């Protein structure tokens, strides 16, 4: 029979855990709101850049170094955006599995030849891929402690420079896209080389009237300056989406943890009461039989 005191201790432990998970859920909810706000704030900038890039890429026959398309893909860079902290359900693992799956499917040669390099953002991503012997050339733990546009643009500028120099022929970004608070989309997107048809296609729906622009100095120079900004905002958007998804994932993970703790507590309370009841029953019957034994005398 379970000891009464043991059950009581377990109840208080479960209760404590429940309070912690509940608090973590609240914190994640607050952070989520902030992260979502930041996502919304980048939108006008991003869509304007997309708009102008789409217009320029479609119209000009520019041979920009960033637009280069390698005949043979010799080496690949992948930027994987995970999280710094755990306790967010399958947020990291699901993404990493997706990355491994897409590497297996499309880049397995590069993986074997060691021409697949990884840049990881977030502590969890670095730890996971280093442990599995991926060629992690750069890791950024603690990236989300101080989330700033400058740090992502630095990262992306370096990657695009390496792309221009020919160190890499393709660049991918893997991240969790924010679908809703409880759902994330795992995405592995190719950012370099830039696919002109994709950009012009996505900017098509945004009121694309034929305005006769003056380009100063000329469209090629503008595109040359604009493309890095376009790449930077892509990474920045991915990082922000991932950040919001992480908080959302943590929120729902902590919510279900709280629910589970509640269930467990209910069960334990029932057990505790049963044990208490049976202890009392035993005690009474002992007293009664004791009294009977005395009365018999």
């Amino acid at each position, binding site marked *: 029979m379970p000891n009464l005191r043991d059950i009581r201790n377990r109840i208080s432990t479960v209760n404590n855990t429940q309070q912690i998970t509940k608090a973590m859920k609240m914190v994640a909810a607050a952070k989520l709101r902030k992260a979502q706000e930041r996502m919304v*704030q980048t939108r*006008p900038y991003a869509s304007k850049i997309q708009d102008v890039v789409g217009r320029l890429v479609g119209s000009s026959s520019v041979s920009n170094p960033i637009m280069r398309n390698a005949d043979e893909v010799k080496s690949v860079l992948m930027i994987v955006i995970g999280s710094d902290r755990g306790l967010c359900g399958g947020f990291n693992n699901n993404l990493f599995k997706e990355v491994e799956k897409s590497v297996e499917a499309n880049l397995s040669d590069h993986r074997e030849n060691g021409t697949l390099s990884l840049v990881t953002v977030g502590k969890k991503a670095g730890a996971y891929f280093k442990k599995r012997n991926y060629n992690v050339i750069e890791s950024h733990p603690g990236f989300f402690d101080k989330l700033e546009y*400058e740090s992502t643009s630095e990262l992306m500028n370096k990657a695009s420079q390496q792309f221009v120099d020919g160190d890499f022929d393709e660049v991918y970004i893997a991240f969790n896209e924010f679908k809703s608070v409880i759902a994330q989309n795992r995405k592995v997107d190719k950012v370099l080389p830039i696919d002109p048809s994709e950009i012009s296609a996505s900017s098509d729906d945004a009121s694309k009237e034929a305005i006769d622009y003056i*380009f*100063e100095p000329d469209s090629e120079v503008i595109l040359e300056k604009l493309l890095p*900004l376009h790449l930077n905002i892509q990474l920045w958007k991915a990082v922000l989406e991932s950040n919001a998804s992480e908080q959302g994932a943590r929120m729902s993970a902590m919510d279900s943890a709280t629910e589970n703790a509640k269930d467990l507590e209910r069960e334990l309370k029932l057990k505790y009461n049963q044990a208490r009841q049976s202890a009392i029953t035993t005690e009474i019957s002992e007293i009664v039989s004791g009294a009977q034994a005395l009365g018999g005398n």
Partner: protein
Amino acid sequence: MSTFQAQILTPNGSLFEGEVSGVQMPGAMGSFEVKANHAPIVSALDEGTVLVRKADGDVNYNISGGFVEVAKNKLTLLAESVVEE
């Protein structure tokens, strides 16, 4: 004086939005100023100071380079980093 809509956008959000009478910018080919009813233009900007002429006074912004688009009497300035002076 005739005015037009101007907006300064950064990756961290919109920094300025409102009616202005003119915006002076450090263009890649030299400083220039956009007034109301300017022809549609897309121009690259260098590092420098942007002067925004508002009804209640002028405001200076330092930018790290970027872009400006003017179309249909609306000016949109895009820059990665903008600091108000």
